């Protein structure tokens, strides 16, 4: 790997606000260090734009260490750039070559309206969580750690799903813009724990209902979500969620 600075052609979606239509616009970005992250490359682009007196590109980001789920860019046709288990902020420019042309687009879904440039409104995901992705607890002293025995296998299954950072890449990647991987992950990480078990079926029903109301597509088991998920959440959780919804029909 060389440390030579790169020059790239970066095409970015530009859109001033929710109500206006946008377009792809090309920029030449110079002095891109291969050690930079993708977001640092975007920062470099923005510095260049500001120097020229142009509006910088708006994009979401926060932790820049792959844990918050804020960064959300479809890079060359694949959310987060398509490296296994990597968010856009953790994607390094060493994966690109000098002279490359890169296309950067926002998440595309009816439920994720573009607010500006690459920033989309993902509050639909929050509303789904609010509709059921919690456990009802009566207040009182916090229980001691480990006083609830949980089999290792169940804890692992729960943790697989709890890794979800809610970035929405699953929706962005899905041919149908379905949110099933997200919703099922949020249901699954609670369903495997004794605290979440009692509300398992009501939770599944409420979350599924909210998911439909937000206008996400349906699941066709293409597994594109699993392929792009930066936390590598398995489509197993979707089968579990389906199973819970079917069982819910026979309960009550």
């Amino acid at each position, binding site marked *: 790997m060389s440390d030579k600075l790169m020059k790239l052609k970066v*095409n970015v*979606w530009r859109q001033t606000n929710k109500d206006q239509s946008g377009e*792809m616009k090309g920029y030449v970005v110079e002095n891109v260090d291969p050690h930079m992250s993708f977001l640092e490359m975007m920062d470099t682009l923005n510095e260049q734009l500001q120097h020229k007196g142009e509006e910088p590109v708006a994009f979401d980001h926060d932790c820049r260490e792959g844990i918050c789920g804020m960064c959300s860019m*479809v890079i*060359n*046709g*694949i*959310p987060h750039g*398509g490296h296994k288990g990597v968010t856009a902020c953790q994607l390094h420019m060493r994966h690109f070559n000098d002279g490359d042309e890169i*296309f950067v*687009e926002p998440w*595309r*879904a*009816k*439920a994720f309206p*573009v607010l500006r440039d690459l920033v989309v409104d993902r509050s639909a995901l929050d509303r789904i969580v609010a509709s059921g992705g919690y456990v009802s607890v009566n207040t009182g002293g916090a229980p001691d750690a480990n006083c609830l025995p949980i089999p290792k296998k169940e804890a692992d299954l729960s943790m697989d799903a709890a890794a979800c950072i809610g970035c929405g890449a699953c929706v962005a*990647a*899905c*041919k*149908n*813009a*379905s949110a099933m991987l997200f919703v099922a992950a949020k249901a699954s990480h609670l369903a495997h724990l004794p605290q979440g078990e009692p509300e398992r079926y009501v939770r599944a029903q409420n979350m*599924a*209902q909210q*998911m*439909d109301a937000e*206008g*996400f*597509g*349906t*699941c*066709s*088991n*293409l*597994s*594109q979500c699993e*392929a*792009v998920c930066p936390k590598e959440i398995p*489509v*197993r959780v*979707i*089968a*579990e*969620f*389906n*199973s*819970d*919804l*079917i*069982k819910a*029909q026979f309960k*009550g």
Partner: protein
Amino acid sequence: MADAMELKRGSTGPTLFGSLVKFMSSSVGSKVVMAVTGLGLCAFIMGHMAGNLLAFVGRDAFNHYAATLKGTPLLLWGTRLALLIGFPLHIWTAVRTVQLNRAARPVAYAVPSKAPARAAAKTMMLSGAVVLAYFAYHLAHFTLHLTGPQPATLLADGHYDAYSMMVMGFQQPLIAIFYVTAMVLLAAHISHGIYSLFQHLGFWGAKWTPFLKNVALVLGYGLCAGFASIPLSVLLGLIKP
């Protein structure tokens, strides 16, 4: 307070039928309908192929099978009824989900998606549509006797000479090609469908799911080979008039 008590007794909920209809029209529920009907259609197709392979045994075996089918109203109409219910439901949910999916992404990506997925899985609607078109033609040819070459006379027992009808049909290269094409697409459809339907029905296993994916492939393309072997054998002269 009174409301809360009511809810606790669960006496204010919708009726069983009401909640079932509500579930079936939800996105997950409609996929359950698609999965169940798909499973039924697949079972039908397997039985159909087993019957067809009797063509290799000979004219009498094949015609006897056809006559037995026609002579057993319970079997014939049971199957037809299942198809009459299963097919429209399968198609209706397909159309509905495609509508929902199109609406879910109003603005397309500038760069076509690179998120990996099997081609057969991405083209379920297309393969399904071609198989449906073929199915309609197939009914017109072999069940309703409206098109295609038909034997001039009935058999002595009053039945259609199904064997001759089949051989005469497949001696026409165009009919054979349409048939084989539809079977290849049916194979693609089933090769994703079988795996997908278990996922929709909530069935998952660390060992079972990879196995089911293979079953789907083997079954899909095995059915295709079984069905397609007949017109090809007719064209090659292995099955004689």
